[in-house]
């Protein structure tokens, strides 16, 4: 291939840093004296970085990811050397030579990656064939053209878990009813402790996500919001009681809300596969309790118009092995988790080369269409945490301490870190911008803002319960 691979901007590279310390350290490695070797071709970029030791570190990046590899002892993804390498490339490609053949250590790694990717693809092919074979066996109705029925025979372990959940939720239902009977405003000395006890009980009952619901409820100072939360909890309890009659999608949502989603193999077997050109609208890395780090990547399909959420977890400052660049679009396959409002998906295949014209604003629907879509999703899935909104031609307004996005006659409350407000105003300059964010029914957490003057992303935040 002689096409030059995309050169990522400085902003995009810094967005890949697993934490601020890495970004800062990378910036400190930009002196030319530190990089005796720098090279790139269409597939990869590489360099040797002179550290304090005698042997320089060998750093390389597979540009199709980007995926990083470095001989330094750091366990972060990507390490500061990988970031520095791409930063240098962003600032001045002329320092990178393009030899006829990359060095041996680069060639060997890329070769290894290619082999592993091929093996992975073969494995998936086999899995899918197995599903099709099972489905083409005659069904109960004798109609071989009926859609493959996923294997839903419950295992003994699943049955045990449901029993525990049932027992736990029965207690929860009684306790909630008790609180409402006596009055939520009635606080006894034991009240605060009771919430914690019930939260712990949910963890014991293998419905751990509900502990988060109860903790959030206990911290709620607005009593209307508290009642709303408890009301939806009640709906969940009753849905679990009626689970035998629920649609597959609704049942999957119930399980996900309990903190018991389908595992990867089940999703691959039962989920809907969609091939499309998927564009990254925005992403956010959120630090949760106990150094758990959650990354949400939001995609939209160019042809299908489908929205998708990729959810990944890591720990501490390790970072994530697969990188996604906001604004980039790549052809690939996603498999959606079953749901009444399908959103979460797994990326099972992704093209090595991004589509050209990445970063261009896609054609966006009007605000009413977008908001209707969100409304439909929230109506179908009563416990849906977040739905993505893409809004074109928005005006950013700051009125006292509140930030709003205005367009098509609507004003949407924006959730924006307060120290970022001047930057957003500077990029907008009172004109119209394109936004992307996460809608929870009350506010839009802004993830991406694009104006004629540049792109802003939220990056990494210290999160809390929403």
């Amino acid at each position: 291939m002689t096409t030059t691979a995309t050169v990522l901007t400085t902003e995009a590279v810094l967005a890949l840093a697993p934490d601020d310390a890495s970004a800062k350290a990378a910036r400190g490695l930009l002196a030319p004296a530190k990089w005796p070797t720098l090279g790139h071709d269409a597939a990869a970029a590489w360099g040797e970085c002179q550290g304090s030791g005698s042997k320089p570190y060998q750093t390389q990046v597979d540009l199709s990811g980007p995926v990083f590899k470095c001989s330094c002892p750091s366990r972060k993804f990507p390490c500061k050397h990988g970031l520095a390498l791409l930063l240098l490339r962003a600032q001045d490609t002329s320092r990178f030579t393009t030899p006829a053949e990359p060095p041996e250590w680069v060639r060997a790694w890329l070769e290894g990656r290619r082999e592993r990717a091929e093996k992975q693809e073969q494995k998936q092919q086999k899995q899918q064939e197995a599903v099709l074979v099972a489905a083409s066996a005659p069904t109960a109705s004798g109609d071989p053209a009926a859609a493959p029925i996923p294997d839903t025979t419950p295992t003994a372990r699943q049955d045990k878990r449901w029993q525990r959940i049932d027992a736990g939720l029965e207690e929860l239902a009684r306790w909630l009813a008790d609180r409402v009977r006596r009055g939520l405003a009635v606080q006894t000395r034991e009240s605060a402790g009771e919430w914690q006890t019930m939260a712990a009980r949910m963890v014991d009952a293998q419905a751990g996500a509900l502990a988060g619901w109860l903790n959030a409820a206990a911290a709620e100072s607005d009593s209307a919001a508290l009642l709303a939360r408890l009301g939806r909890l009640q709906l969940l309890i009753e849905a679990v009681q009626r689970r035998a009659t629920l649609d597959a999608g609704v049942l999957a949502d119930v399980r996900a809300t309990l903190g018991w989603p389908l595992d990867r193999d089940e999703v691959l077997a039962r989920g809907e596969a969609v091939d499309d050109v998927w564009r990254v609208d925005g992403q956010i890395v959120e630090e949760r309790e106990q150094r758990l780090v959650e990354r949400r990547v939001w995609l939209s399909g160019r042809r299908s118009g489908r929205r998708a959420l990729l959810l990944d977890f890591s720990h501490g400052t390790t970072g994530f092995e697969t990188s996604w660049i906001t604004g980039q679009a790549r052809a690939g396959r996603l498999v959606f988790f079953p749901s009444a409002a399908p959103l979460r998906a797994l990326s099972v295949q992704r093209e090595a080369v991004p589509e050209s014209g990445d970063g261009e604003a896609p054609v966006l629907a009007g605000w009413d269409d977008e908001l209707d879509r969100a409304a439909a999703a929230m109506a179908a899935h009563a416990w849906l945490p977040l739905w993505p909104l893409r809004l074109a031609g928005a005006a950013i307004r700051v009125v006292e301490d509140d930030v709003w996005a205005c367009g098509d006659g609507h004003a949407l409350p924006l959730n924006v870190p307060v120290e970022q407000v001047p930057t957003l105003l500077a990029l907008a300059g009172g004109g119209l911008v394109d936004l992307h964010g996460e809608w929870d029914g009350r506010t839009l957490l802004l993830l991406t803002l694009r104006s004629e003057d540049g792109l802003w992303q939220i990056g990494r935040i210290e999160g809390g319960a929403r």
Partner: protein
Amino acid sequence: MTEPLMDRLLPIALVGTERSPGLRALLREVPAPLTGLMQALATAPEDDATVLLRAAGVLAVAQRVGGGLAAADALPEAPAPARSDARPALSAEAHQALLQRLLGEDVPDSLRHEALSLVAQRGWRLPAALLPPMLALALRLPMLRSAVGAVMGERGRWLVQQQPRWRSIVERPAEPTEEDWAHGSGAARLAFLKDERRRDPDAARERLIAELASLAARERAELVEALAVGLSAADEPLLVKLLRDRAGDVRTLAAQLLPRLPDSEQSAWLAGQWSALLRVESAWLGLKKRWHVEPPTAEDPAWKTRALDLQRPRHDGLGERGWWLYQLARLTAPAFWPAHMAMTPTELIDWARGTDWKDALLRGWREAVLAAAGSAGVAGEPDAQPGAVDARWLLALLDCREAPGWPAHEVTPLRSHLPLAARTALWRERVGSAAADVAGEVVRTCAQPLIDGRPEQAGQLDPALAASLSAAMVRELTDLFAGRHADERRALAWLDTAPELVAWLPLACLTAVEALPAPAALDPNASATTSYWLHHRIAPLHDRLQQTVALRRAFHALPVAAVSSSTDFR
């Protein structure tokens, strides 16, 4: 509607269903579209609490589906958007990286000033995303405000309007227009008024008089500064009126301008005061004169109307009488003293040293001299106006033996008003013996005009002096990096001064700085005279100097922005 229903469920939930019988009745009377659903709930067999929770759940989902939005016209009217920028933004990757480096901690302020000035000179403006950190920097460092103002562009001006705390970043239009007077910031209006004072001082004065009644104290103080330009006897009535202004700052400004009018009534009054306090003894048939000074013994009620500041700070070094003497001195034109007492400034200072009131007099003279220099310039210079101060006053004050005891921020302004030739002469003598000290003074003096709002006079440095100072610095740093040093205090002085100086030097001097050898690794047991800890602190200086030079060169290499023929260039 769901909201009112939730509002009516809430009290029941808070008080408790066992105390509220009306739940079912409430659910039976729900209007469309939830009528059917709620009526089914009303007859559900479970207990009231469970039914209430279920209803609340349904309403909560409905709220999520339909809620959160407001109508755009419920918000107050939007401010006008930013105007289009005529200048292009410096947004290429490599250039943005350079601008980012200016925001780093280790960058000398003088370099930041030069870099941004170059950006302006080459016809660029800052990219929008860099405006907030640059404006924050300008807020923190007054000496950068003129440079940041020159590159903020229309987008920056608009942004400053949106964020009140940035409005104090003064930004003076190069060619003020009526529009600036009508709608501009305080600084823009002052620039316009000063401009008008240059062309038609009387018209400008009338304009100011017309505005005065409607201005707040701070705004009055801002605009009265304009009277310093084109001052004449015709301004006296206004100044006398301002002597009695409610705002202390306005009174002080007026009192500092009046001494420039030697025929003014204020000057006459001051002369009268001094004639009572100064007494001369003649001896040897008038050939030898001895002057004596006695401060007032009691507070004079007339002082208040003459803009003397009678609130002596409790722990001030001057006593009560000394304070009065100082107040009178600071309002008196420097030209008065040589005329009245027939002594040069140097002789006057020597004389003051022999009285009991040296501190009061020196302090008053220093302030009067600075006020005159700032307002009317230095006598004999091309920009001098009536009331300009004699350069010998500046030299005498800088030279006197008390000067080293004064804080730098009081000495530097005196030095910065000296004409370039005089300044250079003062420094040239000392470069050989006290290069580090001279470098510190040079650095502060070069930057002072930026703080005073005279950016066009910043960085004036005689090339020959710069070359010899640079050579001296290179010599001393070479010794330092090699582990030899003469004097610990001087070594430490170079730490902060050297990078700042490098940013003011002519480009030709940079080669020698780049050629400085890196600090040798120091063996703790070696017999070198530099202590280990000192070397530890000096070693990073080399890197810092190289980075400063590299950044300067990078900014000097900036291309000139292409001038677009279209006026719309966002």
